């Protein structure tokens, strides 16, 4: 157990601020797949002074629609005002607020890490623990990919920092409401449709 990297932070202790903290909300917005829709949503946020923390867009299985997953920062306004204003956009069809506790959320991280012959195996080990993949290998660098919850990505980033991060990129978050399953822990609290 001697080659555990130094500064290993216990995973239960998130490094930086994470979007799951109170104050952030995740909105899943179903929109018509029309030119300019993303601009409309983005402009609405900037014009009304709402802050977007992250944003992911992709077509749905029905090609007429796309889904935006928007993480919003609720410092300035209420979620209610944001959803109501979003609803006024003609191309917005449905907005679902996704409760972080009642949803599964994933982000993708790509990171180029300095990896000389000495540190390479340590990095690989760390990647193994987190379930990250090595997707590109250079002489002195590795590119890692990890899809996981935002918290786990934060942890992972903190840990690989020690080796020297050359570049890191994260996607916006995508989220789905947790599936219903028999439970004896009281009622299910699904994402609130608004």
């Amino acid at each position, binding site marked *: 157990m001697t080659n555990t990297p130094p500064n290993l932070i216990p995973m239960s202790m998130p490094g930086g601020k994470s979007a799951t903290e109170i104050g952030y909300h995740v909105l899943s917005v179903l929109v*018509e797949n029309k*030119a300019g829709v993303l*601009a409309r949503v983005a402009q609405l946020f900037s014009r009304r002074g709402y802050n977007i923390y992250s944003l992911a867009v992709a077509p749905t299985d029905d090609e007429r629609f796309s889904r935006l997953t928007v993480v919003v920062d609720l410092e300035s306004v209420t979620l209610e*005002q944001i959803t*109501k204003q979003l609803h006024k956009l*003609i191309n*917005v069809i449905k907005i679902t607020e996704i409760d972080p506790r009642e949803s599964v959320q994933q982000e993708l991280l790509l990171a180029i890490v300095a990896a000389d012959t000495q540190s390479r195996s340590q990095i690989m080990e760390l990647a193994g623990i987190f379930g990250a993949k090595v997707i590109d290998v250079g002489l002195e660098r590795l590119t890692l990919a990890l899809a996981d919850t935002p918290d786990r990505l934060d942890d992972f980033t903190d840990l690989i920092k020690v080796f020297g991060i050359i570049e890191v990129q994260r996607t916006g978050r995508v989220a789905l409401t947790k599936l219903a399953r028999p439970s004896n822990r009281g009622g299910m609290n699904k994402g609130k449709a608004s």
Partner: protein
Amino acid sequence: MRITGAQALVKSLEMQGVDVVFGLPGGAILPVYDPIIDSPIRHILVRHEQGAGHMAEGYAQATNKPGVAIVTSGPAATNIVTALADAYMDSIPIVVITGQVATTSIGTDAFQEADTTGITMSITKHNWLIKDASEIPQVVKEAFHVATTGRPGPVLIDLPKDVSNQMMDWYWPESVDLPGYKPNTKGHPRSIAAAAKLIKEAKRPVFYIGGGVIRSGGSEALKVLVDKCNMPVVTTLMGRGAFPDDHPLCLGMPGMHGTYTAITAMQKSDLLITLGARFDDRVTGKVSGFAPDAKIIHVDIDPAELGKVRRADVPIVGDVKLVIEELIEALDKGEVGEMAFSITQEWHDQLKSWQEQFPLRYEEDPKDGSLKPQYVVECLSKLAPEGTILASGVGQHQMWGSQYWHFNDANTWINSGGLGTMGFAIPAAIGAKVGRPDKMVWAVDGDGCFQMTAQELVTASAERIPVKIALLNNAYLGMVRQWQEMFYEQRYSEVYLSPDLPDYVKWAEAMGCVAFRVETPEDVIPTIEKANQINDRSVVIEFRTDWREKVFPMVPSGATNDEVVLGPMFEGR
């Protein structure tokens, strides 16, 4: 039938029942102007595209039908941006069609290219960039639907030149396909019942009436409701005329320059029955101090208005007219029907005593013989035939227009409330007259405003649209001067305009109008009477008004509505 995109556009407008468009041609919209020659639609050639937009707004406000403007790309599209922003703020249904460079040139900084849909995204209810001629009838139908339903507002269709020239198979769509747009019009029955109960329980209620009542065509229904409840009414700047000023329960306008009674009634009220109004900052004053004891019923077609500024005890999403009708019924139904109204005689008495103590007041017989702007508006109102429409610019004259004109009908007061667009009056008056040729149309305008859009009087003369302009020439950007006098220690900065540069009479005559200059109070009535006799040409009366006059009452910006400043007429009392 194979026709061009341009022909399809004009045909679609015809199908939509459009009888008049306001516009000005240019390169990118040239193909559309060719079929306009053969169309029964009347085209009114403006002198500036901003004018086309405001005319469309004036037309819409006078008729409750959508106004239409057609302009070319680039600079023409940017010229009409002000009118779009204005219509967006005041929820006025207009449809603006702009030319665009060919689809193959979009994004290349082509000649007269502007990102029109991008620029207007936040000041339209929706906009469309058409990429294929086959979309045209569908988009036109959708555009009119979006503009006129729900909370009305401006929409824009951007039409590239090659799409106008492209051939298409004509069709007229049966329906619109807008899966994300389904405005609610009927109020929720449980909320209606809850509102009716609050109305019955209120001891000091006030009807707070906004422009939504006019847009929804609800003023007749409102009269029935108010008479049934016997409760006082205030009408906001946008809501003037929604309830008759002559009605004994009408307290006039609330807000920054409202009547003392309207402002204070709201302030002391225990229930605001808010119909189609939006708690604008000019009405509420400092929001945290606004109507502290009042419960709120808030009815609006736009759910986003509910709870935006002030939390409502009973929020109701719905068409105001329908909700009023539902309320009238609910007041007689079930348990609520059994209840008596709780409004007190003390409340009525209190209001009456405020009205007697603090009416709108100005110096009626000034010793120096100066001409008071308030007197001018009062005379205009008295001498105007019933149903006369009054349009207004923005500034002191607008406030005097709203205060001293007696509005007894909906759609007779046309002004720029939300955006406060100087220069609105003249083109809006022209648009209103086009929509209601049967009515006399006056505009009250300021000298500053007049200089912004006066050229549209050329349009009025050329197109034989006789409007009447009462130009209150105080030689100042008066409203700004008032603020500098009151809040900037009388340090007047860039507000002086001069009384006789330009010579307004000569200018008006040069534009084909009959023009008069009035400098004394004695000449006011005879000159207005003369103007009212002229029906074949536009008339401009330049009134040289007392530049020292300020608008009162006034709630200073940032103050609560408890701090009404009544002005010099009430000093020493």
